[in-house]
């Protein structure tokens, strides 16, 4: 099968660390051109990943490719998508799909008008752990799900090449949309739609470092998602069903299942296998390639991305302050 020829638009950290290593081990795609306004950066990456062409103008994408991965700051997603769809390319858009529902709708409309695929990079869905969770819940092995708790936090620096994540206008917000969108997506994918929600944030300007989303799902399950970009949290999901508990990494190769009545002593005291990151990214590209070939819809399409942005907008609109018990006003004691 001829690989889908891909233009990589944007040569920042996720292209370098995620998409290009994934493409290198994905037989379904071939990255034929790197596009970045920083030509030297694009050329260095092209040399490193063995990619033939480099461009600085997105309008040249169609000269080399039939589809594109867009990994630009989120405020540039809509104009990039509209340009690419107009040129007849399919698009895998890095998360979040856009910075607003309005932009999401415009991108979905542009894709429909051009009859092209719009997929959104919810790459955690391609991790084995997420697949196991999906299968486990679909099988009803756990029984009705009562509680869902995801703690998602990383204090380590992400080697971003621009400061867009510090600008709500460019990023669309803070920890919730930049980091938590994966956690929200997994929750919606696994548990279905939300009934009611409460959102608390430590920022009054959509630049939250920490936030907590509490939801009651239509299924009746209670879900909590904690997101931090100031602290490294457990980075685990714990799901309690009527018949057992499952604990999974946010993205990994294995899950731990404890049916009620089973002893935790039976669990092996060995570290789980490390995440096969490039292979996970490759699985996402394989899914995109299948959609481009018309075999099936992508696992996360424009509608998926839009639903997530709608939820994020609702969270920001209804945000309440997140008050940590240790974050008390500084006591200015009276001097003796």
């Amino acid at each position: 099968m001829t690989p889908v020829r891909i233009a990589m638009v944007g040569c920042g950290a996720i292209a370098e660390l995620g998409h290009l290593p994934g493409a290198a081990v994905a037989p379904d795609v071939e990255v034929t051109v790197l596009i970045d306004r920083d030509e030297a950066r694009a050329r260095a990456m092209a040399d490193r990943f063995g990619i033939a062409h480099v461009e600085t103008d997105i309008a040249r994408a169609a000269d080399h490719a039939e589809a594109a991965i867009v990994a630009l700051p989120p405020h540039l997603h809509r104009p990039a998508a509209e340009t690419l769809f107009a040129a007849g390319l399919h698009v895998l858009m890095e998360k979040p799909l856009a910075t607003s529902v309005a932009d999401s709708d415009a991108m979905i409309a542009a894709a429909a008008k051009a009859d092209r695929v719009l997929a959104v990079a919810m790459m955690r869905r391609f991790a084995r752990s997420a697949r196991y969770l999906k299968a486990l819940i679909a099988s009803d092995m756990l029984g009705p799900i009562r509680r869902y708790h995801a703690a998602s936090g990383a204090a380590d620096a992400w080697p971003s090449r621009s400061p867009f994540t510090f600008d709500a206008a460019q990023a669309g917000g803070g920890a919730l949309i930049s980091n938590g969108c994966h956690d929200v997506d997994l929750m919606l994918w696994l548990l279905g739609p939300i009934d009611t929600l409460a959102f608390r944030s430590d920022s009054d300007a959509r630049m939250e470092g920490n936030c907590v989303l509490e939801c009651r799902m239509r299924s009746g399950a209670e879900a909590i998602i904690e997101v931090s970009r100031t602290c490294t949290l457990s980075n685990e999901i714990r799901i309690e069903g009527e018949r057992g508990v499952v604990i999974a990494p946010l993205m990994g190769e294995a899950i731990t299942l404890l049916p009620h009545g089973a002893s935790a002593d039976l669990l092996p005291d060995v570290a789980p296998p490390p995440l096969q990151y490039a292979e996970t990214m490759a699985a996402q590209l394989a899914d995109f390639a299948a959609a481009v070939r018309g075999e099936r819809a992508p696992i996360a399409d424009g509608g998926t991305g839009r639903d997530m942005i709608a939820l994020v907008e609702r969270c920001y609109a209804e945000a309440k302050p997140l008050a940590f018990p240790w974050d008390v006003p500084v006591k200015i004691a009276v001097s003796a």
Partner: protein
Amino acid sequence: MNLQGKTAFVTGGSGFIGGRLIEVLRRQYGMRVKALVRGTTSAGGGAFRAAAAGAEIVFGSLLDEAVLSEALAGCDIVFHCAYGTHGSAAEQRKVTVDGTRLLAQTAAKLGIAHFIHLGTVSSYGGNTPALVPEDFVNPKLWAWPYAHDKLDGEAALAAAARGGNMPYTILRLGSVYGPYGAAFTTGPLGTMRRARLALVDQGEGVSSAVYVDDVIQAMLRAATKDGTGQIYMVRGPDTVTWRELYGAYDAMLGLDSLVAMTRDEMQRVRRGAWRKAVRKVVPEALVALKASPGFRAAAGALPLVRAGYARFGKKLLRPVAPVAAKRAVAADNREIVLVPEMMLDYFDNPSIFSIDKARNELGYEPAYSLAEGMALTEQWARWARLIP
């Protein structure tokens, strides 16, 4: 200076103390805050913390005059929390000393009304009197580069401020702990989760522990006074030993991780570790060298020791526990981690640093006992999953 409505420039804005200061300046004083952060590729949790509090993040180096000039324009006050933490000792010193000088010179040029500088009580060196007064000058400082660099940074500030007629104040801090603290909070907590921690001479040295919000109180009080170039010491209300400070973390973790060792015992452990490491790596080094295609060509010119060190240096430096400590507090086979040798004097120091001057002139009154500060720290540490 009345801080309300003013604009502050905070260096080390992504750091522990700078981060907390920014939260307080924004929330309690409604100040505009610009925070200096080294670069986008190194901007982690601390920078996001500052951004969440509403600081404007300025990416750049303390050694870049253009960045500093632009950022300082329109500012009223500077809180200088940054110091060199990355790279070689020389690179760190450059940031701590030259960076402070450049910042002070630039701030003076732009008419900054007050420059608050953070120093360290470790700059007083060892063999200090039982009660160290603020103006104590020690002819013999420790061989700890950080302590030297911070002192030289203070001198650079003083010269630049006097030359530019800029008000300034220096606060020499004890061992600051609290949420997001690295050296005296996440560091020991992380170590004690996985290993035993050896404290020198029963851990009876005085830690000069101070909860971060007391440091912020001192900074705010200093900021509201005239900056007359005074030096103040800042520590908590109690005399807290290292055993008490780290014992609080032990209690949080529900472990018994502290091991008391004498300097001689520590020295024996270090020697034992060295011998064991050498016995392990020398055969490996020889195999690796033989396998190296460049080795034969380089062998004539490159000293063997240097080649071996370059290949295996990290292993050699990793402490191991070849002998059980004599006074280990529990039957526990975890690795024993030793305090770095150059910091032993700091951990062994019985002196109490006077805060009388800060009390009398700034009105500083530490508000957090060890128990109160640790209670807040524990709440944060549980949320940050540092405590299982």
